[in-house]
């Protein structure tokens, strides 16, 4: 898994690529935590190149979203597709996250 973070005016974009599994899901937690501790309220995860996510990855997404909700922020998911989308659907998580096709639409929603 590879994470590239970019700060924009209203949010922080996190481009996540590769495979998020039990061995590395905490790297996503830590990357988000860095920005939350700096005061970021809205994180936008660009998942166009995320190929795989397991329940440990779901745990990271949920925990981060719950932290942001507690400060009136949000974790927005973009371009979720393929197996990761199916995993979110099977666990009924799609309704808990704001979701958009593109990061631009996500930014426009803020």
């Amino acid at each position, binding site marked *: 898994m590879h994470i590239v973070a970019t700060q924009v005016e209203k949010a922080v974009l996190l481009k996540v690529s590769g495979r998020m*599994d039990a061995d590395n899901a905490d790297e996503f937690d830590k990357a988000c935590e860095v920005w939350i501790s700096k005061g970021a309220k809205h994180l936008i995860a660009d998942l166009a190149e995320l190929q795989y996510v*397991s*329940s440990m990855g779901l745990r990271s997404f949920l925990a981060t979203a719950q932290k942001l909700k507690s400060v009136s922020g949000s974790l927005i998911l973009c371009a979720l597709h393929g197996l990761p989308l199916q*995993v979110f659907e*099977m666990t009924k998580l799609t309704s808990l996250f704001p979701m958009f096709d593109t990061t631009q639409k996500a930014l426009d929603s803020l």
Partner: protein
Amino acid sequence: MAQPFTRLRLPARVQSVRVFHQFVRDGAAVVGMTSADMDKLDLVLEEILVNVARYAYQGCVGDVEVGYSIQGDTLLVEVSDQGHSYNPLEATPAPDLTLGLADRPIGGLGVLLVKQIVGSLSYRYQDGQNIVSFCFPGHSTGS
């Protein structure tokens, strides 16, 4: 005709999961599994192995073994450990998927995923071993 099992034994820890993925993909390739289905197989295997790594030996070290057998165009997979008797398929209550974000528990989703992806899933305790087994079709026509 049923073929014998090909087996690999490694320490029961999260860091072993990727090695098992590579190992089982050899069998998946033989039954003609698509790349997308191999990812689903990886997911099922990861969820079962993480459960073993967390709970089987209760803080002590131990091994976990993965075996696969080619059954026609289907892959039969067995995951076994010698930890205390523990059925991962019944150990945790199904999480409440109707709860909102603030109240949704962050755990308990792994077994749910396994059950949704794999049709034939079974657990048995035999000769001092927990054995979880499942079948995964090769030339899958499903989504």
